[in-house]
């Protein structure tokens, strides 16, 4: 049973056209993360939510925003996608007691920018 669900699996967007990726979870975890993973690279943390508290990584471009309307859902908004934003975007969740040692990932959304 899928516990972290990302939609869509594949997204094609035009250069500069805003796009939203979504993530939902059935684990009732407090913490939700968004990672960017480019080909043959390590996942890079963009930001995370602890409940409604938003935590942005220092090097995350302003072009990337996020919303978490409730515990189950989290969205990644890319305001003006560039060619360099083409990547796999991974959503993950964890409980507060083990942020780092037990993260559950979704299947990812592969974003193509044309």
């Amino acid at each position, binding site marked *: 049973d899928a516990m972290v669900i990302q939609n869509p699996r594949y997204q094609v967007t035009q250069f500069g056209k805003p796009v939203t990726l979504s993530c939902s979870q059935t684990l009732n975890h407090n913490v939700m993360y968004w990672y960017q993973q480019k080909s*043959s690279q390590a996942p890079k943390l963009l930001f995370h939510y602890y409940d409604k508290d938003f935590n942005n990584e220092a090097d995350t471009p302003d072009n990337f925003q996020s919303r978490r309307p409730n515990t189950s859902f989290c969205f990644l908004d890319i305001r003006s996608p560039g060619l360099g934003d083409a990547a796999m975007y991974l959503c993950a969740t964890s409980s507060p007691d083990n942020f*780092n040692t037990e993260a559950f990932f979704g299947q990812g959304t592969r974003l193509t920018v044309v």
Partner: protein
Amino acid sequence: QKEVEQDPGPLSVPEGAIVSLNCTYSNSAFQYFMWYRQYSRKGPELLMYTYSSGNKEDGRFTAQVDKSSKYISLFIRDSQPSDSATYLCAMTVDQTGANNLFFGTGTRLTVIP
């Protein structure tokens, strides 16, 4: 220098072989060491995690940590075609604090029937 270094491979082995995957790291404060498996076009899934030095075994998988050498390994015995995936190591100083989990770039493994 990157926090975590991992040979990207690719690595191809025949079915039944013993596979050794490795990572090195620079931060001596790391205490928790994880291995994730990522199938093609899927998200990573946690395979094993180890606290501090030593070995941990789970079926055909053994994780080994040598903190004195800043070196971790994942061994896969009797490898199967279903083990074909990218294996990512990850490590952290503590369990809490969501922004201090460091991943390797992953090693792509193919097990040939």
